[in-house]
């Protein structure tokens, strides 16, 4: 699922992990010696979230802040490693797929226990899937568990084995099990039977009632101030030496409403790590002592400019209909794209810590990145030739006019709260002024922007950003399918408006049931090529994931999938240091 905000995908560390280790060891030999002596147990880390979680019920968790906390309390059967982007065993120790790709057999780990000491069994797994699939629960992840429009079937085979049947082959494969929390039937069974599961485990629930299989369990919740998690003594995961995890005793979340406030508190020592830093914050910390700052590479976020290509009633808004005549021309969109200085976007907006984009997949997502896409440098001459070829001309004062002599001017909508996208708009405004196009920037609040784009469709152009929640192209279905809500240039269409959109629809549907990665890659490469050929979205740039922690925190390995820094919280520990 993609979210229109501005926040995240996965990362490949720019230098390899070996190189990173070398740098760390050169920079802090004492720390490296301590690391080799073995991890230290105990202590706590304090992290900040913008808002407190809206629930402790993992089935109902929808926003990133809630997931940050809840995902530490619960575990899934198969987990996507946020760093390698590959699946790995979690509560299920192994799994196999039938030849026809319709049946998955998962083996549960032996002796699993919930955080209250109660055994976690196959019955709990079946119960959990029943909860997620129950329509009356309204789980946001329910849609992900529908394959070919039908819910998956989960049944118990024996005391350690679960069989999952799908209606048709599903290319996403075992990734479907990621982030589906296994729930305790002995705690929630009664509430579910009564249809009251949606009211269970709200933010006012007693801490001891929240029971999961994650590395931590809830210890204290002071609403609006802090949430304290304590080590789960029954956690199933072990470190390489067979020692129990997690190493830390406590994990504390404090509510800090802005990135600036979080940064100041981090520098004051009140917070131990920051998941996302702005490039300027990162630059300030990189030159300071006592911190480890890591650029995890391009994120899964892509920012883009798009034009209103909706099929609107020309009589209701003739001025917009006139402008849409320009927007519909491939040559016009290509000219705008050619005039935009993506290098300046990266240099100014991301202070060099980002990647210019010509497609929706960043280098951070190496598996799906199409390296064959054309990535032309900025060229005003090419832009001018394209416009000239499409019948546009320039007046004496340098302003661009169409065939009818109408001056080419339009407005760009954007979210007022997004400083980076505001800066992108200012750069684009200046770039297009050099083509003689006058651009007005219209900052609105996020809800108003989406309302105009998805409902009233009363706008010229818009800058938005999407963050893929997974590296798999399947999460982009709502964006690339012409019927998708996030098919922003013409959302939720009854049928594809152009032949190339019809082709993208077909390719996206084929890739979801293709059996091999190579087949899927070929199909998705073609989708990316079609997007580059027609540029319904003019891709701009992707920021790197920039994170920081105190120098003494070991195993700090930011990833490009959320949660960027807590994904391996069970492995984090403090290196012994005087005074700590």
């Amino acid at each position, binding site marked *: 699922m993609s979210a229109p905000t501005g926040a995240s995908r996965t990362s490949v560390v720019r230098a390899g992990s070996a190189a990173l280790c070398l740098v760390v060891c050169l920079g802090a030999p004492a720390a490296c010696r301590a690391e080799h002596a073995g991890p230290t147990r105990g202590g706590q880390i304090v992290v900040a979230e913008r808002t407190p979680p809206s629930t402790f019920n993992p089935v109902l968790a929808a926003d990133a802040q809630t997931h940050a906390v809840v995902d530490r309390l619960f575990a899934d059967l198969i987990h996507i490693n946020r760093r390698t982007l590959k699946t790995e065993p979690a509560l299920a120790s192994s799994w196999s797929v039938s030849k026809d790709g319709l049946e998955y057999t998962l083996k549960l780990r032996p002796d699993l226990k919930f955080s209250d000491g109660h055994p976690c069994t196959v019955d709990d797994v079946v119960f959990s899937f029943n909860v997620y699939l129950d329509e009356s629960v309204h789980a946001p992840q329910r849609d992900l568990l529908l394959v070919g429009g039908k819910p998956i079937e989960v049944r118990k085979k024996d005391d350690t084995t679960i069989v999952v049947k799908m209606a048709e082959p599903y290319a996403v494969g075992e990734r479907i099990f990621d982030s589906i929390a296994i729930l305790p039937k002995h705690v929630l069974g009664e509430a579910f039977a009564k249809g009251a599961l949606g009211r269970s485990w709200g933010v006012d629930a007693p801490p001891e009632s929240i029971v999961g299989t994650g590395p931590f369990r809830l210890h204290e919740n002071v609403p609006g101030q802090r949430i304290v998690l304590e080590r789960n003594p029954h956690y199933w995961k072990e470190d390489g030496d067979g020692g129990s995890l997690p190493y830390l005793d406590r994990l504390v979340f404090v509510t800090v409403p802005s990135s*600036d406030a979080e*940064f*100041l508190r981090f520098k004051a020592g009140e917070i131990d790590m920051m998941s996302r830093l*702005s490039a*300027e*914050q990162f*630059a*300030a910390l990189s030159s300071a002592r006592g911190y480890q700052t890591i650029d995890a590479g391009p994120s899964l976020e892509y920012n883009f400019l798009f034009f209103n290509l909706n099929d609107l009633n020309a009589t209701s808004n003739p001025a917009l209909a006139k402008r849409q005549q320009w927007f519909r021309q491939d040559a016009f969109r290509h000219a705008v794209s050619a005039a935009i*200085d993506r290098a*300046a976007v990266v*240099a*100014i907006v991301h*202070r*060099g810590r980002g990647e210019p984009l010509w497609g929706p997949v960043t280098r951070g997502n190496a598996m799906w990145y199409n390296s064959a896409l054309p990535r032309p440098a900025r060229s005003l001459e090419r832009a*001018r030739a394209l416009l000239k070829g499409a019948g546009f001309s*320039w007046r*004496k*004062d*340098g*302003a*661009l006019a169409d065939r009818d002599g109408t001056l080419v001017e339009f*407005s760009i909508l954007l979210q*007022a709260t997004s*400083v980076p996208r505001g*800066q992108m*708009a*200012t*750069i684009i*405004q*200046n770039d297009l*002024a*050099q*083509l*003689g196009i006058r651009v*007005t*920037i*219209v*900052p*609105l609040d996020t809800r108003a922007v989406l309302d105009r784009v998805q409902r009233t469709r009363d706008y010229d152009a818009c800058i938005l950003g999407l963050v893929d929640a997974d590296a798999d192209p399947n999460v982009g279905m709502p964006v690339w399918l012409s019927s998708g809500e996030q098919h922003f240039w013409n959302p939720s269409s009854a049928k594809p408006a152009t032949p190339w959109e019809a082709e993208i629809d077909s390719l996206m549907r084929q890739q979801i049931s293709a059996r091999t990665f190579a087949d899927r890659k070929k199909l998705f490469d073609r989708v990316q090529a079609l997007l580059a050929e027609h540029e319904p979205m003019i891709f701009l740039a992707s920021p790197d994931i920039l994170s920081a922690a105190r120098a003494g925190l070991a195993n700090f390995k930011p990833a490009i999938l959320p949660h960027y820094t807590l994904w391996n919280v069970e492995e984090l520990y403090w290196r012994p240091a005087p005074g700590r």
Partner: protein
Amino acid sequence: MITARRAVLLVVIAVHAIVLSAPWVAPYDPAEQQRLLAFAPPSRLHVIDAQGRWHPRPFVCAIEPSADVPFRYTENCSRTYGVRLFLRRTTAVGFTTRRTLRLVGVDEPGAMFLLGTDEFGRDVFSRVLIGARISLLMAIAAVTLSLALGVLLGSLAGYLGGTVDAMVSGATELVLALPWLYLLLAARAAMPLSLTPTEAFVIIMVLLGAIGWARPARLVRAVVASARTNDYVTAARTAGASTAHVLRRHLLPQLPVVLVPLALQLVPQFVLGETTLSLFGLGVPEPAPSWGTLLASAQRPQVLVDAWWLLAPVAGLIGICVMYYTLARTLRPGPLVSRL
């Protein structure tokens, strides 16, 4: 000897002359982006070169971006550019170029940023000057509008009394009781958001004027209401003078004494009003610079650490406020010092 009042007046006239001629005084076009020189610090004007020789004409050294750290620059005084008066600069507009006369500047490829540059490499000094022009002109126009409304409504209420007075006074109380800043924000948010800089200028000016009429109206009403009971007014009315005549001949001439200081207090208040709107993205849109949009880009604490010069509009705002309030005080009777 120059009196304090005259000195303040001279300062006010000089500041307004500079601000009004901003497009000519500003060394650069305020929207011109020199992206390779983003966040460049204020240029240092030199009079002594590397060999220790004096130069009567100040000069700037070439600035070069640091190879390692983004937005760090070093001066290279092996290449210098003398500051020149009355020079022509070429600005690109679309695919044509425009040559404009500038009061001061240096020859290209030299760059003279008196107050540094912002994140897009735009000259902050030019933007502050042009921004001052937008903010000040808008405030003065809005004050004129609110005074016109205030005089009209206040004099009618004060002279006619009765129902008209009750209605105008009630409306005045209501407007004064509302927090004007929030009222302004709400009213602006209800307007169309996609506006050209000129449309935005007019709308904000009208909004400021429409919300700011209450104080002048109350003042005018009080002056007119007290004056209309004077014997000479009664005599004129007894002699058959019309309402318009009495207002024009006897009552309105008394107003400048109270209205001028009030107007002088309203100007900085309206400048702040416009700045606040622009700060929240509801003012004059980019690329037109107003002090509010300039300050909006300086909101992040790290920017203030790295590029303190972006706070220049704050100094401008303080200067404008002090200047206008001082002028308002000097125009009152009594020694200046006791008023200060």
